[in-house]
């Protein structure tokens, strides 16, 4: 009985440690935690470029995370929080940039390239098929005679 109790107490203490290492912020509910995680993944660290602020250890990223937590607590919606960041750091901080005249190529460029690739592929396939149909695969009478002779020769050598 005592052993079981000791094991249970040890197990509880482990759980506490694991939780403290992960959770630095106390959220009201899981939905808020999820929004926090989504926002910190969508926003880019201005100092350590190519890292999102969830991932970065830079002091500025920590400040921005704290700021997001604060605004979530104030009941701001995602759009307001993203606008707050963009107002200060520019479009650069968005990993999901808004669709605008400057960013449409970013959004549609890959699709356009893919479509272009399919068009080229289709053209090549069509041309190949055309050639295959045009090229006569039947042997002419002359050719058949030559072939018969050649095969005959082979046979006499056996």
């Amino acid at each position: 009985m005592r052993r079981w109790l000791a094991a249970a107490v040890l197990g509880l203490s482990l759980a506490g440690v694991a939780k403290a290492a992960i959770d630095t912020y106390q959220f009201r509910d899981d939905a808020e935690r999820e929004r926090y995680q989504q926002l910190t993944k969508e926003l880019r660290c201005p100092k350590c470029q190519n890292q999102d602020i969830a991932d970065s250890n830079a002091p500025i990223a920590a400040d921005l995370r704290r700021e997001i937590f604060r605004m979530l607590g104030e009941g701001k919606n995602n759009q307001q929080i993203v606008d707050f960041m963009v107002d200060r750091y520019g479009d650069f901080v968005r990993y999901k940039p808004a669709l605008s005249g400057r960013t449409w190529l970013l959004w549609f460029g890959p699709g356009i390239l893919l479509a272009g690739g399919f068009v080229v592929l289709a053209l090549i396939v069509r041309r190949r098929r055309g050639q295959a149909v045009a090229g006569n695969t039947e042997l002419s009478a002359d050719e058949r005679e030559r072939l018969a002779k050649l095969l005959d020769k082979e046979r006499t050598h056996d």
Partner: protein
Amino acid sequence: MKRWIMVVPLAVFLLVAVFLYKGLFLKPDELPSAMIGKPFPAFALASVQGDRSLTQADLIGRPALVNVWGTWCPSCKVEHPYLNQLAEQGVVIHGVNYKDDNAAALKWLADFHNPYQLNIADQQGSLGLDLGVYGAPETFLIDANGIIRYKHVGVVDATVWREQLAPLYQGLVDEARP
């Protein structure tokens, strides 16, 4: 084999070469500021000296450089002598002491001379956040109405001053003069 296919590798190479060459001169760590053309953000903070409280209204009246600095920032030490020199020439420079220990900041100013007319103590980094600061030193240029007109990220030295800041500053001074 078609002739034109032989040109493809050369064409691809040239295209890549053009982009790589351009890449040599890009500075991806210098972000365009989102604050250009906007008024200096509202704040109410103490001065570094602790003798008065400052707000954005205190910055209005004259074109000025607003230099974001900290004693923890090695590049700030590099640019400090040049700021002293500019201040001596009569350039108005205000400081934002960004996320710093106030005692260390006072010691720094005593040791290395104080080029700042006003020095805002932004210990929590709240003003820095509103300014879109992502590293020190950063230097903003504001006009007489307190509108941010330009931002330089990194050390201000003679070259930066001559080529970027001085013409703009002079322009703002002329603009402010009736």
